[in-house]
């Protein structure tokens, strides 16, 4: 799988998890550089559910101090594509 394909897969998966949390939101107009919270009207409970869904889907531990890095689509992709130790 090429890097582009892998990135697309990750992107689609993140969007699916967001859709589970905010089913009524229009994700096609999502700005990847802006916070989900403002664009999708997520509250802290929604966001917590989102990072827990990432944790389960990608088998990663996300310390609470890293949560801000997962608040945009670009941020999520950067974190999820980075090589893990």
């Amino acid at each position, binding site marked *: 799988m090429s890097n582009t394909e892998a990135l697309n897969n990750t992107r689609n998966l993140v969007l699916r998890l967001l859709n589970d949390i905010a089913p*009524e939101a229009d994700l096609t107009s999502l700005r990847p550089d802006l916070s989900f919270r403002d664009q999708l009207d997520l509250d802290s*409970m929604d966001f917590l559910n989102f990072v827990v869904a990432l944790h389960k889907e990608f088998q990663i531990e996300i*310390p609470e101090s890293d949560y801000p890095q997962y608040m945009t689509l670009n941020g999520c992709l950067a974190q999820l594509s980075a090589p893990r130790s």
Partner: protein
Amino acid sequence: MADFVMPTLGADMTEGTLVQWKKQAGDRVTKGEIIAEVDTEKAAIEVESHTTGTIERLLTQPGDKVPVGTVMAVIREDGQPTTAPIHEAARRAAVTTPVHRVEVAPVSPPQTGRLRISPAARKLAAERGLDPAHLQGTGPDGAITLEDIERAGAITEVTKPGGVADRQARMRQTIAAAMARSKREIPHYYLSTTIDMGRAVTWLKQANEARPMTERLLYGVLLIKAVALALRRVPEFNALWKDGAAVRSEGIHIGAAISLRQGGLVAPALHDADQLSLSDLMKTFQDLVKRARAGSLRSSEMSDPTITVTSLGEQGVEIVFGVIYPPQVALVGFGKLVERPWVTNGQVVPRPVVMVSLSADHRASDGHRGGVFLAEIDRLLQEPHIL
């Protein structure tokens, strides 16, 4: 005999529509068990039984819209004879109360023995929330087919009046009625103070570092717990206004204001919030938010709140001037957690602070006691480890 009546699930609910029975005549039911699903102006609610026994008869049909208090079923409590005559009120109600009826196909009584149903049909039934035991199969030897499930699902669907837009409009009306009544009848007074959240925030950060991801706490849970514990000291705010007097409530059931994604809000109860650990309160709260948004709250959650807590800080609001939800006598509102200059020991330091407000019914309490309530919330939030 015990009557199962259309419950009142909110301040201004006057009638409700039976969507479906979760039990049939002859079924055993235990106290707290879901017996019916009822559609109100706000949401579809799972209604719990108040008693343990056997269902003698069902008097209301799915699709019937009946006034609050209408006897919908008769339950034979354990130890009672089986042939007691039908309750007079129940007979009257059964004859006169349906004000709106959507025709639904008859549903066969539950079958005994092994149910003939394919795994695919069983799966679909589970997805639609249907009990195959109560469906009439049209397949070979009465087997329940996918089409039977589809048809039953469609029947359930038509019994729900209107779609999402209709429900939104009705919810708006319900909120309008409750809030207008509140402002018409309740002489509100308002108090507010600023709480230093430095200790609570630091404590929570450390607590969450030690917790697995799935068990981390939200800051809002600390606020709810602090209000619940503070109410033990000022019980006059944990009360309902009934017949010209405030009646103190036995349990502390915090109504947590939850905004719904399609608009509107509900404030279902976190039962006995003062007695739950932060972890249990968090789990209960998560489950409540999920079910509120999915439209599957329980009757006790709708009818039991003894005070409301609302946190509007998420969108940047710094202070809430709340409207009390009748017949409650108080509402506590939290604004956004913000960093502000704070003077401590003669030094100006940046501290995370939150503005808490109390809207209270002046018929039930006075400002002095309201001040004690807010001070107690503040005191508890300075000792987060005891929450």
